[in-house]
Every structure is written in structure tokens, then in C-alpha cells.
């Protein structure tokens, strides 16, 4: 198969685009990211690798805003992400200029996915090595939205999804535990999902919450407090499981 993974525009005999699949592998090595949609809130959570002591952690923001009402998190090659994010930000403003309306979440997702696809069908370039999770509220309606794109250029809407490291187990957890939530409950669900694969603590998780008012990045202290709540709830649930069996006997 070695001959079929040189040029990106070449299919293999069994219908694979190997460069795209290798890009997906790069995504699988990236940091874990999770997105959860509620009825009035949508949340992004990203794993933060422990920062070297001398690094200014404020310059490493993993969840970025594309416009006042759209935010993005990604897993994979961060340098590629910067290029995509810049192009998407320009497109958000360009759309406002040409139709005097902010973009819908679906529109900007389609644009980013379209860019990612273009790089799988051009000469001399390689695909972007990242999958994105895009959250936001459409203008004029109060419904939150969550979308995911991947290096092949496909995109779809999700109620909750995970990408990056251990995304399969995170997604399984979400499938088992997802229910329609609102406000703080949505945030806690996102943190619980992320805690499946990340060691707990405000130092290792970054959370951003989008409501129709806008985006809010949670402080370390807030995240620590929520994590503590979740741990307490888990302990209570454990105790409750043991207690009935005691009463029964």
C-alpha cells in the first residue's frame, strides 16, 4: 500500500484516501475534547496538558471564539487549527458584510468542512490534521447547536460528542448518560464526560459555556468547585447503592 499514500489525491484500490486516514490518526493522538448541547446552553470542554512551569498558560487558549455567538474547540495539530480558525473568523465577518446577518452555526461549520475537504482534493497539500467541535446559537432563534467536522471534510450536528484522545470511551459514556439538560446540569455532564479520561482538577480541564447571551470561559476555581460537586454526587450515589442492600437484609 506504500505507493498509494504518497500523493493525497490518489485513491487506493480498495477506496481509501490514506492521507485522510493518517490525519484522523493525528486527531486520535490529540487532546480530548467534548461538547454537550442542552436546551438553553451548549458546553465545550478540553483537556489541558500540564503546562511547563515557565510557560504563560494564558497564551494557550484551547477554546476560541469565531464570533460573538460561535466558539470552537479542536483536537489534533494546533498549528493547522490556527490557520482554519483565522479563515473562519474572516468568513464570519465577510458574511456579515455581504448579507448584514451573523452566520448560522451550520453555515460556518459547512465553510470549515468545505476548507478541510478542499485540502483533500488539491495537488501538493496535505489535509488539516484536526477535528473541530463547533458550538453556538443561530441568530434570531434561541436554539443551541453543536457540530463536528473532521479531516475528510464531513460534518454533522450532534447532541453530544467527543473527539481526540480516548474519544470512543467518552462517547460511550455520553451515550449512556445523555439526557436533555439545561444550565449548570449541561456543564456538569460535559465535565463528567471529560473526567472519564482526564485526571480531575481545574488545572487539567478547560471549559467554556455558551448561552444566548454569549460565551463564558470558566475560571479554574469554578471548575474545581464543579468537580468537587460531581465527586460528592458520585460518592452519594455509591453510598445510596450500598444503603438499600443494607436495609433489605
Amino acid at each position, binding site marked *: 500500500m506504500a505507493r498509494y499514500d504518497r500523493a493525497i489525491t490518489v485513491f487506493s484500490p480498495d477506496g481509501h484516501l490514506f492521507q485522510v486516514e493518517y490525519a484522523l490518526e493525528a486527531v486520535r493522538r490529540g487532546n480530548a475534547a467534548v461538547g454537550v448541547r442542552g436546551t438553553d446552553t451548549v458546553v465545550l470542554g478540553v483537556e489541558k496538558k500540564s503546562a511547563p512551569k515557565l510557560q504563560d498558560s494564558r497564551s494557550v487558549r484551547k477554546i476560541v471564539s469565531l464570533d460573538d455567538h460561535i466558539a470552537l474547540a479542536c483536537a489534533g495539530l494546533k498549528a493547522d487549527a490556527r490557520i482554519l480558525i483565522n479563515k473562519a473568523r474572516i468568513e464570519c465577518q465577510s458574511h456579515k458584510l*455581504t*448579507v*448584514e*446577518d451573523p452566520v*448560522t452555526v*451550520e*453555515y460556518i461549520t*459547512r465553510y470549515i468542512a468545505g476548507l478541510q475537504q*478542499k*485540502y483533500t482534493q*488539491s*495537488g*501538493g*497539500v496535505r489535509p488539516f490534521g484536526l477535528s473541530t467541535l463547533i458550538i453556538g446559537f443561530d441568530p*434570531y432563534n434561541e436554539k443551541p447547536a453543536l457540530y463536528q467536522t473532521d479531516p475528510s471534510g464531513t460534518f454533522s450536528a450532534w447532541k453530544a460528542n467527543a473527539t481526540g484522545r480516548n474519544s470512543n470511551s467518552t462517547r460511550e459514556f455520553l451515550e449512556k448518560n445523555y439526557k436533555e439538560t439545561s444550565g449548570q446540569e449541561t456543564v456538569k455532564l460535559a465535565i463528567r464526560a471529560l473526567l472519564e479520561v482526564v485526571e480531575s482538577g481545574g488545572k487539567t480541564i478547560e471549559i467554556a459555556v455558551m448561552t444566548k447571551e454569549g460565551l463564558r470561559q470558566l475560571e479554574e476555581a469554578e471548575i474545581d468547585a464543579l468537580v468537587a460537586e460531581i465527586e460528592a454526587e458520585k460518592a452519594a450515589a455509591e453510598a445510596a447503592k450500598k444503603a438499600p442492600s443494607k436495609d433489605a437484609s
Partner: protein
Amino acid sequence: MKLDTSGLNSMVPLYGAEEDSEESILSVPSSFQLPRTTDFDGFQKKAVQMVKPAKGTTTLAFIFKEGVIVSADSRASMGGYISSQSVKKIIEINPYMLGTMAGGAADCQFWHRNLGIKCRLHELANKRRISVTGASKLLANILYSYRGMGLSIGTMIAGWDETGPGLYYVDAEGGRLKGKRFSVGSGSPYAYGVLDSGYRYDMTIEEAAELARRAIYHATFRDGASGGVASVYYVGPDGWKKLSGDDVGDLHYLYYPVTASPVDQEMSEIPVS
């Protein structure tokens, strides 16, 4: 500004292009011969005036409580010659948006049709209708890129979208104005007189239509370049609907019926003695 030829392109993407390449298929020449004259600006003005057909027409549109009324005459003139009395000056861009025609008929028809295509593509791509704001902006941007090249268009885009009734004036100089009342064309001063004095926000649809009809009639009465049939359209939440198309000659006798006037001094036979 580079010509916006997106309305004329086929939908085939360029091979291997990730950025827009510097040389496009239709590149504007970077230099051209200047005419041999001392007064270049005056020459340019005269040249533009020569190709620019006068906007001999009356069109008007206004927003009121129930929606938008759009109305126009139907005369086409070439100087002093009336070339047609039955021109359709209200163009149906799509079932919920109308455009009016003033200036060059071909320019207006082509670019309105082109705008209709773009609106439909927007609908298909984004699964929702384009707003009147967006549609008027698309048209204004295209017209701006052809600025100075002799397009003659003075149009109003009227429609109903998510935010309610919308009315914009767009012209070939690249201007775009949002407003509640507009009249465009050589007969517009006369139409404005009637429209502005009779306008109230809370009229019924029939009252508003009658106001528009009267305004067009009065414009056709005084302006030689306007005449023919006064059409009135209404745009509401369910789209546009043609309300009436009356010959302005008939309207004249409707508004000012001929009554036998008593003669001051009768002519009587003087008896010849």
C-alpha cells in the same frame, strides 16, 4: 474594485486553487488609452450622459402596517418617442420579493433575474429564505463593482422576511438606502407629492393601494415619460399579490369625471333684421 462576475460564472471550481489566484479568467486591463482632450473630466461626464438612458418612469413603494405596497407605471420612452405602453416594471424576484424597474430596462431585467438566482441558491444552501437586507446587499455589491461602466438601474427591493416587511432602494451608482417610502423615476416628484401628503402608517390594504394608484396616476398626468397602466402589488407575510392594473386614462375619468359645465354666455342667434 474587481468586477463581481460571480453572477455570470459557471459553477465549475478552478483546479487546484486554494486561494484566489492573482490572474483570473477575466482580468481587467491595467491601463487604457486616454482620450485626447484638455477637459478629461468633462469628457467623461459627457460620455456617461450619452450612454445613460434617462430614467423615464414612475415607480413607488412604501411600508405600512399591513406590509408593503409596490406600484409602477408601464411606459417606455426613447427620448420623445413612446416605444411601449405595456412594460412590466415590477419584477417578481421570487414569491415573496419584488423589484421595480427604473433606468435601463435590459439592465434591470437581467440583474433582477440574476438576483433571483442568487436568492434561490442561498435558500438551497442555507435552508432558509434570504432576508430583504441580504438580497438588496447582494445586488448593491454587484452594481458597485460595475460602477462607472454605464449600468443604469434605480430599483427598489421590497419583500417580507423573518423580521417583517423590508424596503430598500438600490441604484447603479452603488447606493443602497433602507427606508419606509420611496419613489424613483422622472415622475417621482409628482408621486411624492401625493404619496407624502396621503400617507398614514395604519391604513388598510385597500386604502394603501388606492393611495399608490392615485400617486402613479398624478405622476403620469404631469410627466410625459410616464403613462400606460398603473399596477399595484401588495407584499404580505404570505408573499406578493397583484392587486390591480388600471389604465391611467381610465383613472383620469374616474377621478375627474366630465360634467356638463353651464356655459356663462350662451351663443344665441342675433336676429337679422
